[in-house]
């Protein structure tokens, strides 16, 4: 199968959906013809679809998302880009209090089919305001879906599902994934929400990982196989809401052990919820304590040795796995 990058996979999804459905349009800062998005995901789209449908906005995160909400409840399917995930903080009210609640508050009179795309993640030395992973905030917002594609295939398929669905979705991308290549079919396909993907089968320990951490987990798994002959199963939830609890538990029942690897800071992060699910629903199958591998509870520092120190890596995953096996 042909290989394309995560960035191109996202772009293809946008292009195909915009061709398929005239109600899909894009808005965000510098997504248009002069820049094509800070990470170039929308490069060329303004040229292809015009500036009405690929809309450069002022620096007004709150109004970007709010505008998407207003458009969504009146028949459109907006895809908003927030240039950096950290900046979702500026739009938190529109995301969590408006987009996510509008259907419920109004007794299902409205639907709010919109997507907010945003890149999370550290690793490029751009410090505390441009490097966070904040998925957990949004898992704690009923009414919102949260997708976390780790491969080009998932990126395209999940974004299509997000656009076609009738609910607001936060699509979490990752800065380091954009250049990553992977197989993506030419034909139209979608990836369903709420279905975890076993990215690698194994029998000794379940490693649940999201976004860029999936790849570090896969590397670690390879290493561990060679090394101490530990067989690691890598499970990628692909969406955090809905969370495929059954899929995760199924794997834990098989392996009896779980290590959860996420890039957000440890306390009250994504891994906390997954750990809690296991502690509630699969405790009897556990042969060892649950392990979380995550960033320590600090902001992301700038200097390369500091940043490297806080981001979970293969070594920390291997160490955690060895501790539970």
């Amino acid at each position, binding site marked *: 199968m042909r290989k394309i990058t995560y960035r191109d996979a996202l772009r293809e999804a946008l292009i195909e959906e915009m061709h398929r459905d005239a109600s899909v349009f894009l808005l965000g800062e510098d997504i248009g013809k002069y820049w094509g998005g800070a990470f170039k995901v929308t490069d060329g789209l303004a040229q292809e679809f015009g500036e009405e449908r690929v809309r450069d906005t*002022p620096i007004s995160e*709150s*109004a970007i998302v*709010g*505008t998407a909400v207003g458009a969504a409840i009146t028949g459109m399917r907006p895809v908003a880009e927030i240039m950096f995930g950290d900046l979702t903080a500026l739009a938190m009210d529109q995301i969590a209090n408006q987009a996510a609640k509008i259907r419920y508050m*109004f007794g299902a009179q409205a639907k709010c089919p919109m997507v907010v795309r945003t890149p999370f993640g550290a690793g490029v030395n751009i410090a505390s305001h441009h490097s966070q992973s904040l998925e957990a905030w949004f898992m704690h917002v009923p009414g919102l879906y949260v997708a976390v594609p780790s491969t080009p295939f998932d990126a395209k398929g999940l974004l299509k599902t997000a656009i076609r669905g009738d*609910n607001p979705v936060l699509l979490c991308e990752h800065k380091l994934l954009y250049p990553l290549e992977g197989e993506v079919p030419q034909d139209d396909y979608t990836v369903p929400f709420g279905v975890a993907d076993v990215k690698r089968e194994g029998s000794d320990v379940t490693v649940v990982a999201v976004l860029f951490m999936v790849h570090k987990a896969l590397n670690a798994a390879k290493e561990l196989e060679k090394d101490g002959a530990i067989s690691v199963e890598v499970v990628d939830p692909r969406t955090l809401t809905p969370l495929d609890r059954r899929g995760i538990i199924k794997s834990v029942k098989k392996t009896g052990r779980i290590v959860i690897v996420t890039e957000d800071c440890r306390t009250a992060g994504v891994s906390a919820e997954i750990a809690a699910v296991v502690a509630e629903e699969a405790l009897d199958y556990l042969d060892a304590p649950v392990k979380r591998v995550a960033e320590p509870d600090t902001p992301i520092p700038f200097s390369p040795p500091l940043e490297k120190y806080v981001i979970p890596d293969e070594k920390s995953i291997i160490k955690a796995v060895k501790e539970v096996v």
Partner: protein
Amino acid sequence: MTTDLPKEKLVEMYQKMLQIRGFEEKLFELYSQNLVPGTIHLYAGEEAVAVGVCSSLRKEDYITSTHRGHGHCIAKGADLKRTMAEILGKKTGYCKGKGGSMHIADFSIGMLGATAVVGAGLPIAVGAGLSVKLRKTDQIVACFFGEGASNQGTFHESLNMASIWKLPVVFVCENNLYAMGTRQSIAMNIENIADRAVAYGIPGVSVDGNDVLAVYETACKASERARGGEGPTLIECKTYRHRGHSRVDPARYRPKDEVAEWLSKDPIKRFRDKLLRFGVVEGEIQAVEKEVSLQIEEAVRFAMESPYPQPEEALEDVYA
């Protein structure tokens, strides 16, 4: 002052104002009897704004609303019964009891709902305007908010965005002089909210918000401008709420003579006098008044007799 409006339109406007007033006064009563859960923010005294603006709209046009939303809802044409039922938390209410007073909505008439986060409705109105533009219909959007809301960041971002994209949005600032207990002069250093339009390169107009015809005419101009693709307008309607901020507020922060002065400018009383001068006869007016009071009674009866939702319904409608 004269008017070119047909008598039927005038009477209809009067009727709507009466409906709002009657509805609010009845709610006040029900609240005192412990029949209204939560809190309510009454619109009494500001009827000329909602009715003046909504009378300039078509059915398919949109409005967005606030915590003080019953008036907007009724002015846009919502059913009194279902509005009342919602505020009482009943299953027959517009939002099946999930929303209540602060989240009233009727999408079937373009009433896109009330948000209780002050200022949060503005970007949503901008989005509705953008939607209209992209769908190429000739709808417009009226966006209601208070003078207090005009200090929120969303006000700024929204007016700017609507301006650069020339969206068909009419921003209607209901300047009732107070945001809870905070007088306008404490919260901003200008007299007229309309002056803020300068910052976005759009027209800003202040109007007597207790004169329904003045509001109507101003709104018509703004609506035409919007429908004509010329972009948004900021209208400031100077008005006053008759009661406290919310049901429990005695509003002691308002000087007595200020209250008295504004009560004497009651928009309903003023419009009634005008109607007589325009040749509507007393009997006709009284007939409307009677009809409205029956409508309110009916709404109350409907709401009171309606069942509450089943507890488990709380779990429904989170996702589509």
